[in-house]
């Protein structure tokens, strides 16, 4: 079972929404990662048949679905803003798509399927309630249950956790992973959060400005991004970007400190946890900056520093530490965790050899 999207493009009023998108999804989870407006939702709508692309094709199990009407496609869609029928009970909400399916499904089987998915999503005790009596997390579970009950070939989840509380998100993310791991369907899951892709350790596609930038295992995209947009999409907290001309503490430029890697001026990318307060190896690169603020979460401290030429970096330090705003300090970039990007094209010039 596979879904193959091939050369999908979509332009509307001169604005490019999708540009030459091709990928293959197998049973299990495929994660679409990208910032707001990168084209994730548009792509999902095209995959669902809700919008037609200008060109390209979509095949599911070798059948071109382009000519099949939306209601006859074996596709389910779960939106960011969960949608349930307010006047129906949870049971009827989940059962509703099964009742209109052709060929007709027997009553007993509908009941069995509803109970099966309800159990998976832990909402069995809610089946007699109306959606208004449920919390947001419970409502989203119902919406997901409804999409699973249909046993569609393709399930599309568009940032399904975005509107939920932080803690609920954590919990539901773990559960979805467990549920979809065994399901024999192609699940396309979009998110703006790289952590979700890493957590699911699934096939991941990074989108940016309507294009597929890179396609692979989440951890590979994290450690070996093809270009800057991929590195940024796979970093949270955000990747620090510094020009290689910024001076080191002993007044060389970072570029010259990395001369063995690449000559000329380039963009340095380094993740916040790879910059430390004390040197951990002789080859670390020391740079000086001025403390702007420190944000303490208890488990970590995010230290914001101003460098020369209005450049800024953020450090992630373990534990809680206080700093005086305005004071000058020297910090150390782990040289083995430094990325280099072409300042014009954004292409990756060099990347760490191991995951950092």
């Amino acid at each position, binding site marked *: 079972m596979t879904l193959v999207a091939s050369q999908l493009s979509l332009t509307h009023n001169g604005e490019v929404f999708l540009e030459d998108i091709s990928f293959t999804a197998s049973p299990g989870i495929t994660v679409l990662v990208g910032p*707001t*407006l990168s084209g994730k939702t548009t792509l999902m709508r095209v995959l669902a048949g809700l919008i037609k692309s200008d060109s390209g094709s979509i095949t599911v199990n070798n059948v071109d679905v382009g000519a099949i009407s939306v209601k006859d496609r074996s596709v389910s869609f779960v939106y960011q803003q969960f949608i349930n029928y307010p006047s129906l009970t949870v049971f009827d909400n989940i059962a509703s798509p099964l009742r209109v399916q052709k060929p007709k499904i027997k009553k007993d089987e509908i009941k069995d399927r509803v109970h099966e998915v309800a159990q998976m999503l832990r909402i069995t005790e809610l089946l007699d309630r109306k959606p208004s009596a449920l919390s947001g997390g419970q409502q989203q579970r119902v919406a997901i249950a409804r999409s699973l009950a249909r046993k569609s070939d393709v399930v599309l989840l568009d940032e399904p956790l975005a509107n939920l509380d*932080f*803690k609920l998100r954590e919990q539901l993310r773990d559960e979805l992973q467990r549920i979809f791991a065994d399901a024999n369907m192609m699940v396309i899951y979009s998110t703006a959060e790289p952590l979700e892709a890493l957590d699911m350790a699934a096939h991941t596609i990074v989108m940016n400005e309507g294009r597929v930038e890179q396609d692979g295992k989440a951890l590979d995209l994290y450690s070996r991004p093809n270009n800057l947009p991929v590195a940024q999409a796979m970093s949270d907290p955000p990747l620090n970007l510094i020009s290689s001309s910024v001076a080191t503490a002993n007044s060389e430029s970072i570029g010259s400190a990395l001369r063995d890697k690449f000559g000329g001026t380039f963009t340095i990318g380094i993740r916040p946890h790879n910059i430390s307060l004390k040197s951990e190896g002789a080859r670390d690169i020391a740079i000086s900056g001025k403390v702007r*603020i420190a944000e*303490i979460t208890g488990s970590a401290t*995010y230290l914001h520093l101003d460098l020369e030429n209005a450049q800024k970096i*953020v450090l992630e330090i373990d534990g809680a530490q206080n700093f005086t705003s305005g004071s000058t300090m020297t910090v150390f970039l782990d040289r083995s965790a430094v990325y280099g990007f072409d300042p014009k094209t954004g292409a990756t010039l060099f990347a760490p050899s191991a995951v950092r």
Partner: protein
Amino acid sequence: MAEIRLENVAHSYDGGSTFALNPISVTWKDGNAVALLGPSGCGKTTLLNIISGLLTPSVGRVYFDGVDVTDLDTAKRNVAQVFQFPVLYDTMTVRQNLAFPLKNRNVSKDVIAERVEEIAELLGISKYLDIRPLKLRSDLQQLVSLGRGLVRKDVPAILFDEPLTVIDQNFKWTLRGRLKEMHNNTRHTLVYVTHDQTEALTFADEVVVLNQGNIVQTGTASDLFLTPQDEFVGFFIGSPGMNFLDGKVNDGAVMVGSTRIGTTLSATTIANGNVRVGIRPEFLSIDETGKGLPVEINRVEHRGGYKLVHADSVQGKFVAKLDNESALVAGQSVHLAFHPERTYLFRDSKVCGTVNVKGAK
């Protein structure tokens, strides 16, 4: 700017049969940033609305700098508010929207112009000043909305209700930092409602954790992370939250299954019997000596900068946050060591003691 004091404030939406907010009495210092943090339905928005005057509490009084404002409406309380979604006038430009709260207060033209530029700069929206807000993306609109809340300096307090919900993930980091910096400079009294612990912890001087209409603990980010007083705080703060295991105290020895993980630090005050042992994923490590709690690893998540190791023990599931160097695989049996001073004992969901791990054998 004002000190906010709540005296025995409680609220019921149904005439007293159930309470969304149980009686609370607190004082928030003038100039502090306070975050109200909790899951949906915990009472945090109810509490915020009581402070803003959108809601009159069923019981209790609200004071701004010692003045009873309980019966004053929002306009008379003079507070600034920022909501979850943008609230803007589309007949005005962004500049006029930002200027509006000042114009209403008869602030001089020059001061308005200067202040509007200053706020626009802080929020990175200077280039949009002369267009109408509906032409902007929703996250930019929300920035304008934020700007309107921040523009006045003479308000007793600025109240935020989940203001960063629609802001892009990456930009949230920048914006949070800027807001904090602004607060460091102006020392407005801020009250900030959120379900996002990172927002609350990084932004606030004081975080108030609410659950089911009660304040469960108030403190700094470090207090809540390092010394949770309640199981809920252990679970809700931290990502992932605290691990809890069933254990026993037996004459000062703390047992998990048949492993003695340590002794109680205050042996005389903890009676023998069942306890819940709480430890954060950050404070677990692999015990190479083989004395620690035996567990079997069932899943290793690679999160880039670190690993989350999920393990099963006889007394429950564990998650440990370990660095990338630890080479562990699913199916492996290892022993876990508990961090001294960071292992807590709970009874009836309240902390009742700390474990001295040095007493382990």
